């Protein structure tokens, strides 16, 4: 039995996560998702009036804004915006609300420096979309994992301390509808039972076999 820095006992164990919905009064849907010391609050407005420039005749346009914990948003946030938009573009049934805009604003509330902010933001967005009643064809669940430098052990949802000895870091998002091959372990609570990868980003030094393994 391994003991991880934050007293988790299993490599596949996630940090305690929680989510609460309908926190904000003035938007159409909101949710906060938290992995221990990483938390993201997401608000949804829409379907609402669209700027003429972004108007699409056959579907709603998605507008994603990510605000960092402190300071101005940088390249990192822009990348997360891009990831979130492309992840949810095909999950939200945008065709049902043509010529409108759905705005997703994610505010990082707590960030302990680990890479799971992206995962938390994706999970929070799913919960907020549910709260807003935006039609979707599936739920999206996301998780981050890493592989150790020395032992090659896969750790789910690594902490900052564990990340310092990571050889590669991986973030995945799965949708709940396509129950095909892989099963995710922990996400039962959110109703995700794995399936096709919607978004995947892996960095570091790793082999193909390892990559398939993380997905399992």
């Amino acid at each position, binding site marked *: 039995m391994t003991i991880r820095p934050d007293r988790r006992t299993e490599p596949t164990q996630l940090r305690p996560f929680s989510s609460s919905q309908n926190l904000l009064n003035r938007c159409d849907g909101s949710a906060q998702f938290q992995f221990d010391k990483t938390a993201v609050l997401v608000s949804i407005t829409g379907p609402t009036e669209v700027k003429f420039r972004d108007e699409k005749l056959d579907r709603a346009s998605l507008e994603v804004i990510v605000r960092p914990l402190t300071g101005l948003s940088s390249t990192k946030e*822009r990348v997360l915006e891009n990831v979130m938009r*492309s992840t949810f573009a095909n999950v939200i049934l945008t065709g049902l609300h043509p010529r409108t805009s759905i705005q997703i604003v994610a505010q990082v509330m707590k960030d302990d420096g680990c890479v799971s902010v992206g995962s938390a933001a994706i999970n929070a967005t799913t919960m907020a979309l549910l709260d807003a009643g935006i039609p979707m064809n599936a739920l999206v669940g996301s998780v981050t994992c890493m592989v150790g430098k020395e032992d090659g052990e896969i750790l789910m949802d690594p902490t900052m301390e564990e990340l310092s000895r990571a050889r590669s870091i991986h973030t995945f998002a799965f*949708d709940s509808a*396509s129950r095909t091959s892989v099963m995710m372990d922990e996400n039962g609570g959110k109703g995700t039972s794995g399936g*096709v990868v919607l978004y*995947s980003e*892996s*960095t*570091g030094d790793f082999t*193909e076999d390892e990559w398939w393994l993380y997905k399992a």
Partner: protein
Amino acid sequence: MATDNADVFRRIQPHEYFRRFIEQNVRPDGRQLHKFRKTTLNVGAISTANGSAMVRIGGTTVICGIKAEVAEPKISTPDEGFLDPAHVQAHSSYATQHAYISVPNVELSPICSPKFRSGPPSEQAQVASEFLNKIIKISKVLSLTDLCIEPSKAVWVLYADVLCLSYDGNVLDASLLALVSALLDPGIMSLPYPMANRAPSVSNSFPPLVQLPKVTYSEGIVRALADEPVTRLTLYRIPVSTTLSLLAKRLLSDPSDAEESLADEQVTVTIDERGRLCHIWKVGGGSNTATPDVLKECIQRARARYGDVKGMVERAFKERRVVFVASVGDETEMDT
């Protein structure tokens, strides 16, 4: 008027237009689905830069220039050099706002396509910049501590800018190839620094090593040592990326601009010379498309592409002339 009709059809029903081509295993530009466009590499394209490379993939042209300078390190990382976009230095207000950004900059300006507007970098440009940054730094292609001259006193700064001159899709592959080739460019050793070592022994073997003059630090002055051998800045891995789009449930290697804007799923696989994966970036999609088989196919195509690109880069450095690989992917006929 048949061609006109086809053009009208393409404009009105772009999805349907592409789908009909793809059903016939061919793309509107005549390529088969797994084929890459003609890729050209010109190393040392900018004579005033320390390292430079121009890459063309079909209609996409990207040029990368690298300039090396000595600077003071950041307080937070006293033993690391940086790899920065040059304009951080040029615009002081930007530098103070983003003091800790050090991302090789990819510029997608209105020069390369009417899709882009002037002004602050577009989201796509930032995504490309971050992509390069992740590969170079997090996937440990370059170690920033190798750029250290004297901890907390002096470090090398590599200003790296990637400028897109003509945009026709797949800017990620082109940018990475340009950046890596520019880093490999042995010209990087002929630094404008006083007394830089101008005649080092350069090995032609692949991978060549980025070379910086051997310098010493004493009493606040960095001096290049003329008679010492050069410091070799190692590229620990030579990454090459391969981008594929999923359109109408089929995989298209090296998507063009039109294909990119229609496809809702994109996979970029980056591998190094040992065949290990550096980075996998997959966005978009849904509805049962990216099955494990499809992703395996992506990695396979990336491996095939790596061989071709590697040969091209080697030849470019050996022969010091513009080299190209015609439609890469010929060797990898596979039924898709």
